[in-house]
């Protein structure tokens, strides 16, 4: 657990970057600091490992005041990941990852084994260890950055815009992997981002900061979307928050049986939209009878629709239903077709579901 206790940072020129910040980042959870530029989120993060010293107040990690430890010692116990990974270009991937274990004076074999283990964990096993950072893609470098932060087995990890410099497609994947990794390791994480979508996706707790380093709201993501504390938070969280809030709601939605066809089949008369699956039963796409002559081939497929996961969020169901060319949202279980949902029925379920009632953990009006 990381606790900010009335932390203020005033720079020498008199500007206040962080103003009387108090909150608790729970152990084993991801806490995201989010806000516009100039809100002091990075300054706040760097005060945790004392790359920046607080002017007032204290920061406690598991009850220990960080001000009571030597900075270098403190930092060796805290993983740190930054935007461009910040890898040491003159060292191999393995040597980069061994940095903290070496600083902690682990014996060489243990440090090496640990480094290889965490590299495997972030999906860079095998001969990546011998390469130099310059030989890796941006996404791979960021994985090494995460591995390096994990190598010393820290109980706390700080991440400063870890996924911002990575192209959107790779970013999605990395975020998903990161969530799984975090779930498995149970590390306490504080992350900084300017991207509210990323905050909502990754955070268990979100601290919204406003200009001048003041805490605007501290709550869970679903509560943030449902109950923004004020106009600033509401506008920062964005216009389509009603839709995004559905990410956090699950409910039973009627699943209709869908009789699929396969590539090579011929469509009979009177059929409009049919779903095509592969031999394993995984959906491939939709075909429309008017546009197909002869046996079905891969070029006939319309690929527009997204897939919802059975038992997943209402957002997934609604999106699948809305994006499907046939108006029937495809639901999968694992990779296999489970059935389809209808938009009106999904909306009906959403209407019937109770509004989110998560409680705001801390907002300026109602201090905890």
């Amino acid at each position, binding site marked *: 657990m990381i606790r900010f206790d009335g932390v203020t940072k005033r720079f020498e020129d008199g500007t206040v970057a962080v103003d009387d910040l108090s909150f608790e980042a729970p152990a084993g959870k991801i806490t995201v600091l989010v806000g516009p530029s100039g809100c002091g989120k990075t300054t706040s993060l760097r005060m945790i490992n004392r790359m920046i010293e607080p002017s007032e107040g204290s920061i406690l990690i598991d009850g220990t005041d960080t001000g009571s430890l030597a900075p270098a010692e403190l*930092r060796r116990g805290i993983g740190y990941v930054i935007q461009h990974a*910040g890898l*040491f270009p003159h060292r191999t991937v393995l040597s980069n990852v061994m940095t903290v274990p070496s*600083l902690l004076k682990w014996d060489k074999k243990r440090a090496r084994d640990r480094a290889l283990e965490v590299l495997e964990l972030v999906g860079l096993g095998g001969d990546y260890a011998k390469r130099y950072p310059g*030989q890796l893609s941006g996404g791979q470098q960021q994985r090494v950055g995460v591995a390096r932060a994990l190598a010393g087995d820290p109980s706390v990890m700080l991440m400063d815009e870890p996924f911002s410099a990575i192209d959107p497609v790779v970013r999605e994947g990395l975020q998903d992997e990161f969530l799984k990794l975090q779930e498995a390791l149970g590390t306490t994480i504080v992350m900084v981002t300017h991207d509210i979508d990323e905050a909502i996706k990754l955070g268990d707790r979100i601290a919204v900061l406003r200009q001048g380093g003041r805490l605007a709201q501290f709550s869970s993501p679903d509560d943030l979307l449902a109950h923004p504390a004020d106009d600033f938070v509401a506008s920062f969280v964005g216009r389509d928050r009603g839709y995004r809030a559905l990410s956090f709601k699950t409910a039973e939605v009627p699943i209709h049986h869908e009789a699929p066809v396969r590539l090579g089949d011929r469509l009979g008369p009177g059929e409009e939209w049919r779903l095509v699956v592969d031999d394993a039963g995984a959906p491939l796409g939709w075909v429309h009878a008017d546009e197909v002559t002869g046996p079905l081939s891969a070029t006939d497929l319309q690929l527009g629709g997204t897939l919802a996961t059975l038992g997943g969020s209402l957002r997934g169901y609604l999106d699948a239903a809305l994006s499907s060319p046939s108006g029937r949202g495809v639901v999968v279980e694992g990779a296999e077709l489970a059935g389809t949902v209808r938009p009106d029925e999904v909306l009906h379920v959403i209407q019937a579901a109770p509004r989110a009632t998560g409680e705001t953990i801390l907002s300026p009006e109602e201090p905890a």
Partner: protein
Amino acid sequence: MSVWGVPLGEVWSLTLDHIYLAGLPLLIGLLLAIPLGWAALTRRWLYGPLIAGTGLLYTIPSLALFILLPGILGTQILDPVNVLVAMTLYTVALLTRTVADGLSSVPNHVRQAATAMGYSPLRRLVAVELPLAVPVISAGLRVAAVSNVSIVSVAALVGVSQLGTLFTDGFNRNAMGPIVLGVIASVTLAVLFDVLILGVTKVLTPWQTAGRSA
């Protein structure tokens, strides 16, 4: 056996003297320039005075320095130490700025990452910043090496023998042979220094040449 009127043995011993008088100051000067360059970079108020001051050193004429140093150091005028000290000063003059530039060429995010991993400032310098500054420092060192090889020859005028002695010798005897030989030997030596520095740089920076196989 002799080349152009100069015994081969003498050419050899003059060359060794030249290597010693130009090369040793290069190493000592580098070792001195590293802390100076670091200080210039980490203590902002020192940057101006240090860079300007060391830069000015280079403008002192070498002959004047060779003559003045015995008075300052209390050495004999013929003592090679005078030349070693003078050449070290010139090396420091050229390299302090180079080291500061090299260290500041280290990307900020890399420096921050090193700090966040738990390196103390000194360890960070040795383990991260200096290795990354090698390409820039090496470029400066090549300039200093050539400059040293060239300036050292002036020491012949104060009687410290090295390849420059061939010039005074040829001048006194009104013979072209020793002068041409001295020029060829000096140039060859400068090229050798350069190749040596390039080689060491290459060994120290394997990451720069590693192919993009990803």
